C-alpha cells in the first residue's frame, strides 16, 4: 500500500513520538496536534529572538577585515555613495551604452546609458552579468608560454620577447602566413587590427560569429541596397517574422525590445512568428506557426501569391515574377510547408488589413542551404506590401568607413578551418573568440590548429581555443579597458560609443588589448611611438576626428574629451543612403530528403549563454531558459506527439545522432516545436572555459554536418538531419517552475482565440 506523505501526516507522527517519550519518563500531558503547533510557534519565536542577539562575531570577522582609507580623496568621491561612469557593453556585438556604478574604486552594478540611441538606458541580462565576467575567478592572471607541451606562467618581458622573435620586423613574417581571428570588431580596435594586417601584408582577418545576420544582410544588400536597413517596428501594424528572434539573439535585441514595446503600445500591432522552435519572440507572438524546417521561403511565396491573387498588394511585380509565383498556390504550399491553407490565408489577410507590414527573416530561416532564397522570398513580401520606405528605411551609416563594424560570419569560421587544414598559416592571433568551441567537429579545427607554428591567444579565460595556444596573453576585462565601438545596426542615428575603464585592473599581470596591439605594431616597426598607450591613441584619435563625427561635441580638445567621457556616446552625422528595391533571381527549392535521418536539428540560441561565450557566468547559467526554464545544463526539446511516438517523457535521456556525431541530453517535451524537429541549445558542452562552464551539458554545434548556405557560403546550422533514440536512462530535469499550466489559479486570465477574434471584429 502506498503511504501518502503530507504535512499533516508528519505532524501526527511527531506528536505520536513525543507522546511516547512523555509516556515513558516525563509527564502524563499528551501532546496533540494543536498543542504541538503551539509549541512550534513559541519555539520559532524564541529562536528568532535569540538570533537577534547573536554576537556579531558569528557573522563578521571583527578585527580581521581591513579597512583602508583613501590616501587623498577626489573631491566628488564619498565612500558609500556610488559614482556612475559611462562606458560600452562588450557582452555581445550590439554595442549598447552602459553606466557603471563605481563605489570605493570597484564597479558594482551596470545599467544602460540613456543617451545611447541603441539601448535607450536599458540592458539585457547578459549586460547585467558583465560584472561577473570582470570578477570571474577563472580569469587568466599571468602570461603563459608553452614549454615542454604545457602552458607555464612567464613574465611579460619573456612573453613579449617571444612575441617579438616570432612576429617582430626581424622575424621575417610576411604575407598570408599570418592570420588573426576575432569576433565582430569596430571602432579603433578595427582600425588598429587593419594596421597590423597591412603591416604584415595579410588579408587573413577571420571575423567569426556563429550568431549572425549574414544571410539577411546579403539579401538586404542585393534587394534593397543597404546591408542593415532600419526596421521601424513602431510604424508597423503587423510584423511577420520568419525565425527572427529579435528579442533574443537577432541583430540588436535590446534595441528591438524597445521598438517592440512601441509597436505593441497604442493601436497594438500584431506579431506573427514562423519558426521550427519557439523562441522568446515566438512566445510573444499572436500567431505562432512551425513550417517544415527549410520551407519558410515557400510559405512566404505562398502568402505573396495569395495576396497578388486577391489584388491586395500595394506594389506590382513584373509579369515574369507573377507567373513564377503561380506554382505557389495554396494546396501546393500547404503540402510543402505543412501549414494549413486557412492559416496562409489568415497571414495574408492580417498583412493586408493591419498594414503597414514589416516582414523579416532570421536565424532559423537564414541558416539552411536555401537560406538566401528563403530570405529573398520573405523580402518579396515587403516589396509587394509597400513596406520599403515605410517600415523598412535606409539606415544612416557611420561617416568614418574604417571604423564601421566588421560583422562576423560563420563563413569566416569555415574559411578558417579550411585554411588551417591546408596548413596556410604559420602565426595565428586569436582574440576573445572561441572558434575551437563553435566549429562543427567534422571541420577538424583543432587538428588544423596544431598545424600552426605559433598561436597567440589574447584572452581573459582559459577557453578551448586559448588552451591550445603557444603564447597566452591575458587581457583586461571590458570594465578595465579602453575602446571605441560603432554598432553594425545604427538605429538610424550612428554613434561612436566610448568604452572607458570603470575601475583599475584587478590583476597586475593583465594588459589592454589595444595596448598589446600597439606593442605588436611597434615591433613591426610601425610609427606609433608617439602613443605611450592605447588610451593616448584613442584620446588623440577621437578629439582629432572630423566634424562629421565629433561636430556635436563642444569645447576645445580637453573639454571635448571630458564631455565625451561623461556622455559616453558621440552622435555622428550619419550618411543616409536610399533604398533601391529590386528583385533577385531565386532558385527556390525546398530540400526535404532525409537519407535515414528523419528529424531536423535546431541548434537553438537564447539571450543568456548566447553562442556559448557566457557559459562561464553563473548568473546566466542560473537564469532559466526563457522557454524550457532549464538551468545549468542542456536539454533536447521534442514535440509531445514525437515524444509519445518514441515513448519518451520529460527527463528521459536521448541520443541525438547526425551523420557527423551524436550528443546525449534529457528530453524536454514542449508544444512549441515542429513535430519533426529536435532542438538542442547552443552554449553548454565546454571541455574547458573555467569551473562554471567546463564539462556541463552538450554542444550541438559539434554534430552539425558541414553544409553551406548555397549563395553566401555561410554555415547552414539548421540544415543538419538527425535521429533521436532513447538512451534508456531517466533523471530529473533541472528546471525552474514545476508546471506549464496554472492549475486553475487564474494568475493570467485568458480568453479563447475565437472569442478574441469576435471581439476584435476579425470574424
Amino acid at each position, binding site marked *: 500500500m502506498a503511504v501518502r506523505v503530507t504535512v499533516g501526516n508528519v505532524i501526527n507522527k511527531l506528536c505520536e513520538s513525543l507522546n511516547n517519550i512523555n509516556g515513558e519518563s516525563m509527564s502524563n500531558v499528551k501532546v496533540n496536534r494543536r498543542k504541538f503547533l503551539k509549541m512550534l510557534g513559541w519555539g520559532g519565536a524564541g529562536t528568532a*529572538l535569540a*538570533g*537577534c*542577539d*547573536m*554576537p*556579531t*562575531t558569528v*557573522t*563578521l570577522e*571583527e*578585527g*580581521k*577585515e*581591513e*579597512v*583602508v*582609507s*583613501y*590616501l*587623498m*580623496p577626489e573631491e566628488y568621491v*564619498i*565612500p*558609500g*555613495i556610488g559614482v556612475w561612469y559611462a562606458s560600452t557593453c562588450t557582452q555581445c556585438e550590439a554595442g549598447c551604452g552602459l553606466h557603471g556604478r563605481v563605489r570605493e574604486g570597484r564597479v558594482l552594478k551596470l545599467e544602460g546609458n540613456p543617451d545611447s540611441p541603441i539601448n535607450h538606458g536599458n540592458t539585457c541580462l547578459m549586460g547585467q552579468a558583465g560584472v561577473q565576467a570582470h570578477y570571474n575567478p577563472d580569469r587568466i592572471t599571468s602570461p603563459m608560454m608553452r614549454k615542454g607541451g604545457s602552458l607555464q606562467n612567464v613574465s611579460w618581458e619573456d612573453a613579449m620577447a617571444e612575441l617579438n622573435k616570432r612576429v617582430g620586423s626581424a622575424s621575417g613574417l610576411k604575407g598570408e602566413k599570418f592570420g588573426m581571428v576575432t569576433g565582430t570588431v569596430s571602432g579603433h580596435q578595427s582600425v588598429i587590427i587593419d594596421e597590423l594586417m597591412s603591416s604584415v601584408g595579410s588579408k587573413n582577418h577571420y571575423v567569426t560569429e556563429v550568431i549572425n545576420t549574414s544571410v539577411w544582410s546579403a539579401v538586404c544588400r542585393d534587394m534593397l541596397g543597404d546591408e542593415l536597413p532600419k526596421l521601424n517596428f513602431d510604424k508597423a501594424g503587423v510584423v511577420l517574422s520568419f525565425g527572427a528572434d529579435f528579442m533574443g539573439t537577432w541583430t540588436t535585441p535590446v534595441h528591438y525590445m524597445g521598438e517592440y514595446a512601441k509597436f505593441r503600445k497604442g493601436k497594438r500591432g500584431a506579431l506573427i512568428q514562423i519558426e521550427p522552435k519557439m523562441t522568446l519572440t515566438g512566445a510573444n507572438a499572436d500567431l505562432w506557426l512551425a513550417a517544415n524546417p527549410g520551407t519558410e521561403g515557400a510559405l512566404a511565396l505562398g502568402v505573396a501569391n495569395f495576396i497578388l491573387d486577391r489584388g491586395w498588394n500595394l506594389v506590382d511585380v513584373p509579369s515574369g515574377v507573377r507567373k513564377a509565383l503561380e506554382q505557389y498556390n495554396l494546396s501546393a504550399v500547404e503540402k510543402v510547408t505543412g501549414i494549413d491553407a486557412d492559416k496562409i490565408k489568415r497571414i495574408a489577410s492580417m498583412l493586408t488589413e493591419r498594414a503597414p507590414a514589416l516582414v523579416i527573416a532570421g536565424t532559423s530561416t537564414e541558416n539552411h542551404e536555401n537560406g538566401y532564397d528563403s530570405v529573398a522570398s520573405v523580402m518579396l513580401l515587403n516589396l509587394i506590401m509597400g513596406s520599403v520606405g515605410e517600415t523598412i528605411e535606409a539606415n544612416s551609416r557611420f561617416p568614418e568607413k574604417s571604423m564601421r563594424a566588421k560583422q562576423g560570419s560563420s563563413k569566416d569560421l569555415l574559411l578558417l578551418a579550411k585554411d588551417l587544414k591546408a596548413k596556410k598559416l604559420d602565426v595565428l592571433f586569436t582574440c576573445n573568440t572561441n572558434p575551437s568551441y563553435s566549429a562543427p567537429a567534422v571541420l577538424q579545427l583543432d587538428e588544423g590548429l596544431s598545424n600552426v607554428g605559433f598561436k597567440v591567444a589574447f584572452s581573459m579565460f582559459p577557453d578551448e581555443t586559448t588552451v591550445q595556444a603557444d603564447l597566452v596573453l591575458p587581457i583586461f576585462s571590458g570594465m578595465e579597458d579602453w575602446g571605441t565601438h560603432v554598432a553594425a545596426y545604427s538605429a538610424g542615428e550612428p554613434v561612436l560609443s566610448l568604452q572607458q575603464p570603470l575601475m583599475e585592473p584587478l590583476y597586475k599581470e593583465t594588459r589592454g588589448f589595444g595596448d598589446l596591439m600597439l606593442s605588436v605594431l611597434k615591433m613591426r616597426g610601425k610609427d606609433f611611438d608617439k602613443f605611450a598607450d592605447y588610451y593616448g591613441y584613442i584620446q588623440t584619435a577621437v578629439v582629432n576626428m572630423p566634424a562629421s563625427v565629433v561636430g556635436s561635441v563642444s569645447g576645445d580638445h580637453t573639454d571635448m574629451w571630458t564631455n565625451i567621457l561623461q556622455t559616453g556616446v558621440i552622435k555622428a552625422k550619419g550618411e543616409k543612403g536610399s533604398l533601391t528595391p529590386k528583385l533577385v533571381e531565386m532558385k527556390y527549392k525546398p530540400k526535404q530528403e532525409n537519407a535515414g535521418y528523419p528529424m531536423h536539428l535546431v541548434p537553438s540560441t537564447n539571450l543568456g549563454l548566447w553562442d556559448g561565450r557566457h557559459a562561464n557566468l553563473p548568473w546566466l547559467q542560473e537564469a532559466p531558459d526563457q522557454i524550457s526554464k532549464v538551468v545549468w545544463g542542456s536539454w533536447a526539446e521534442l514535440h509531445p506527439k514525437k515524444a509519445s511516438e518514441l515513448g519518451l517523457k520529460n527527463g528521459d535521456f536521448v541520443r541525438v545522432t547526425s551523420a557527423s556525431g551524436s550528443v546525449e541530453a534529457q528530453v524536454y517535451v514542449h508544444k512549441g516545436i515542429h513535430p519533426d524537429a529536435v532542438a538542442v541549445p547552443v552554449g553548454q558542452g565546454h571541455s574547458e572555459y573555467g569551473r562554471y562552464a567546463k564539462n556541463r551539458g552538450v554542444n550541438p554545434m559539434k554534430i552539425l554536418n558541414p553544409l553551406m548556405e548555397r549563395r553566401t557560403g555561410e554555415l547552414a546550422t539548421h540544415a543538419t538531419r538527425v535521429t533521436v533514440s532513447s538512451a534508456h536512462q531517466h533523471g530529473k530535469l533541472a528546471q525552474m517552475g514545476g508546471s506549464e499550466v496554472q492549475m486553475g489559479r487564474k494568475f493570467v486570465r485568458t480568453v479563447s482565440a475565437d472569442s478574441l477574434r469576435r471581439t476584435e471584429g476579425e470574424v
Partner: protein
Amino acid sequence: MQVERKMLHRHLVNRMRGQIRMKTVTIKQILYLSFLAAVVALLPAKSYAELPVPAHITPPPGEHESPIVPQPIEFPHDRHVQDMKINCMYCHTYARRSKVAGIPPTSKCMGCHKVIATDKARIQKLTEYWEKGESPRWKKVHDVPDYVHFSHEKHIRKFVFDADFPVQDVQQVCGVCHGEVRGMTVAEKKEPLNMGFCRRCHEANGGPGDCWKCHK
C-alpha cells in the same frame, strides 16, 4: 573599572527613564551601589565628566566586550577628542553624507601632522606611510554584515540635524553606538551592534520596523 562605571551609568539612565523597574531593592544592593559610587568618585580618573546621553535618545540596553584590536598605528582617540576637542565629524567627515562614516584619508591626517607632533614615533610612522604613498591598513572594529543596510547619514540627520542637537556635542550621539571613544586610544567595540540592539533602539526611538528598511 571604566566598564563598571559605564554600566552603572547606563543602569541609572535606564532607571530614570523607567526602563528597569526596581521591584525589590535590598539593603545589600543599596550598600553595593553606594560602595561602587564611592569607588567611582575616588578614581584617580580622567578629568572629564560622564558623557551624557542626549535627552532625545533612549539608548537600547546591551553590552559588549571584545579584546582591543591592535592597529598599524595606535591612534589616540582620547588625545584628539578629549584634549584637542576635535569634533568626530571633522575626521569622520562622511558620516553626515553617506552610509559609512569613513576612515579619514591620510591626506587629512597629514594636514595637521606635517607640522604638529612630528617628533612622536606614531607620527613618524604615519609620515612614512604618506611618503610611500600608502594608507595604513586599519582593522575593522565596528561593522555590520553585508546584508544589513545601515546608514550613518540617516541616523545623524534624525538625531542631530532634525533634532536641532548642537553639532559640537555630536559625540554624545555617536556614543550611543560607539561608546565613549574619547576615553579610548584605538577604537573599541562597546555595544553589541547586532539585530537585537538595533531593534530595541528602533522600538524605543520610533525607528522603522519593516524588515526591508535594513535588509534591502
